[in-house]
């Protein structure tokens, strides 16, 4: 027994000697990123991660974030939420209570952002979801913000654009009934279109289920219904299939899409079929100017592809967080107080000049910002067509 005690004491002593004393409590500002690195949608996680890496590079180059004349080191903590709600909640809880992050950026998709936002709000930690378009994410949650416009805004934007551009009156919708984003947007679009063109102007309202690959029966119905165009608020991988199958069935009228179309992979999967189509999104990569162009070029040269809107929105969200922290007079070092201060600073940001447009937060934590309509060009780039502001 005695020998054991001596041994343990010795072990403790040895460990103490060899434990470097360079780290201990550091007063670095910690930013948490809650993103789907693994799981069903890794491309989204990758975009968020790359944007965060680039942002951190900038901060490091500047020697940290300066608050009240003092430079603070910045640490970015990236947690994987596996594209699952429960995992997003765990990741948020871990970052808030263990890593003691000041702000959380993410999760990207609404199905994770809604429960994770609840956690962030309960622990009074500011959180900004760059990409979640569901109103529930920020609803009644003073500590939760978002970096993009909402479905109830995007639906009317598309409806107005189509009537103005083409003068159509009969619409069809093809959407995934099992995923919250397409379903919500389809409903908003239908509402807006019927308000504009009267009841019954949506002549076909066809749905399918996630991971379906054959849309011929729905497309046949749409074709027969006499619709002048159809709206497909789907993710890019499905868009490619839908467009190809529509062309095979002899559909030669326009197809209109939403922000989930905006991926560098769309043209790879879709080929010539997608050329000339329009969709609404957060920003247009081709024809971008100033900071937006600088961001796109830098991302492209670093990672080898043009950033998706997730990357751009994550970048903007991080910049908003940075601006909010920088606007504070000082950091108290007490994380709870600082979190509250950052939250108030974020809420009072006016006309933030992001690469996806100017943003001002409403009381709900939703930004007022413009949507962009883009056209897919021959070269497969997303060209700016027009900007629609609220």
């Amino acid at each position, binding site marked *: 027994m005695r020998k054991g005690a001596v041994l*343990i004491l010795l*072990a*403790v002593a*040895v*460990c*103490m000697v*060899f*434990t*470097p*004393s360079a*780290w*201990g*409590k550091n007063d670095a500002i910690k930013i948490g990123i809650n993103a789907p*690195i*693994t799981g069903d949608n890794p491309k989204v996680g990758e975009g968020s991660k790359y944007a965060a890496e680039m942002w951190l590079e900038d901060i490091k180059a500047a020697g940290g974030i300066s608050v009240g004349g003092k430079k603070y080191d910045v640490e970015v903590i990236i*947690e*994987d939420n596996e594209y*699952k*709600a*429960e995992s997003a*909640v*765990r*990741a948020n*809880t*871990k970052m*808030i*209570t*263990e890593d*003691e992050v000041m702000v959380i950026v993410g999760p990207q998709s*609404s*199905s994770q952002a*809604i*429960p994770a936002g*609840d956690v962030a709000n309960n*622990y009074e930690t500011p959180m900004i979801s760059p990409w979640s378009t*569901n109103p*529930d994410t920020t609803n009644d949650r003073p500590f939760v913000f978002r970096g993009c416009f909402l479905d109830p805004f995007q639906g009317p934007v598309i409806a107005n654009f189509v009537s103005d551009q083409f003068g159509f009156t009969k619409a069809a919708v093809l959407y995934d*009934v*099992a*995923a*919250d984003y397409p*379903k*919500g947007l389809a409903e908003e679009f239908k509402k807006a279109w019927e308000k504009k063109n009267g009841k019954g102007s949506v002549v076909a309202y066809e749905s399918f*289920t*996630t991971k379906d690959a054959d849309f011929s029966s729905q497309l046949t119905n749409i074709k027969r219904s006499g619709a002048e165009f159809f709206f497909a608020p789907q993710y890019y991988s499905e868009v490619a299939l839908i467009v190809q199958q529509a062309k095979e069935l002899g559909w030669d009228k326009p197809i209109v899409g939403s922000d989930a179309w905006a991926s560098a992979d769309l043209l790879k999967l879709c080929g010539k079929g997608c050329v000339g189509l329009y969709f609404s999104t957060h920003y247009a990569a081709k024809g971008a100017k100033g900071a937006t162009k600088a961001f796109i070029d830098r991302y492209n040269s670093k990672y080898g592809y043009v950033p998706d809107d997730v990357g751009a929105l994550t970048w903007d969200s991080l910049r908003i967080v940075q601006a909010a922290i920088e606007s504070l007079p000082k950091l108290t070092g007490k994380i709870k107080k600082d979190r509250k201060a950052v939250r108030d600073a974020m809420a009072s940001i006016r006309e933030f000049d992001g690469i996806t447009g100017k943003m001002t937060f409403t009381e709900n934590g939703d930004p007022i910002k413009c949507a962009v309509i883009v056209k897919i060009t021959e070269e497969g780039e997303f060209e700016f067509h027009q900007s629609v502001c609220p």
Partner: protein
Amino acid sequence: MMRNMLNRFAEVPLAAWLIGALCAVYLEQWVGDPLTELLLLPKIPVLFGCLIVLKTPKLIPSTVVFLILIYAVPICVIAYAVRKPANMIAAKLFSGPIWISAILHLGLLYLILHIWSDISAYRELTLKFTLIAIIVTLSLNLINGYMGEFSCSHPGFMALGAYGASVFSLVLFADDKNFGEALLPGILGPFMFPLGLIFGGFISAIGALVVAIPSFRTRGDYLAIISLAFTFIVKSLIENLEFIGGPRGLGSQPDFSNLLVVFIWTVLCVWIINNYVQSVYGKATNAVRDDEIAADAMTVDTRKTKMVTFMFAAFWAGVAGGLFAHVLRFVNPSTFGIQKLAEVLAMVYFGGLNSVYGSIVGAVSLSLLGEALRPLELFKWIIIPLLLILVMIYRPTGLIAFKEFNIRNLIQPKHIPEDEV
């Protein structure tokens, strides 16, 4: 010397270990913070240091020292020191009704978990999900282990239970945009919550009946396919039901699932399922697994046995789903898909078939591993499956399979034979 030490510890009863652990968690609460500062750790190692160690390997020595000083030494020393009085108390309790002793032990265990999880909310959340995983794993083990079928419908049952219990508490106790204002005062909520869970459990038991009736003649692959279909049916049913939120999910459940509630339900589940599998029904279930025709010849009503076991297991999966929904405070149909199924199946087969111990071990180890290996990101999904493969190679029925869970053996006083003292 080693053997001598082990022999000495052989007479330490469970009660003494629990007291040791209690002291350790108290110690962590009192001196954990100063000690972490002394050892230059950033925070108290939350999941036994795994997160810290994997992120900054340089901190391995300090973490090990922390674990030794806070956990290993106090537990061993105190457990050893109090072994004699603990044995006496255990013996006294053991001569009385078993439930008094069991409840005291469980109370001690809860106290330990409560204090342990008090340190950080992340610990508490992990603990809650782990306890829920125990319920799910155990109930699936009932079908896949004890009954020898291969059922894939557990995510479906969980979804039914989760939605059932959520609707129950949202309609009655919460002002919600789907269901309008609360019908009952919110203060009743925590007391009525068990009813909500049972309601959810019954809904999934009825769902189980739907699978069981057309499939009671099928076995093996066919049942697997039918039950898998059931999972998909439930998922797309919920996706198309607008009044419970459809694919957007159902949120803002009241916060009824605190640690005590989850703990009590887990204990209830272990206790009831353990009794079930040791009862005549449980033995009949085993007989059906080993040879259905022989069981039939031995007057076992195979059809009824299968149905009852299936529904019973579904009930517990539903309860687990209800708890899960109230811990997460959000449910959406895509949570209950193939990924969930893979998770639960892995826990069952990792822990061991036909064994309550095995289910507990499987659920605890895989859910803790899943959290502890978080810093490894992508490699987590290489290490955990690799572990599963290794277990399947070296222990094809799981780590602790075919072992009976006997509460008497666990809590009895331990005396070493006279001649060795």
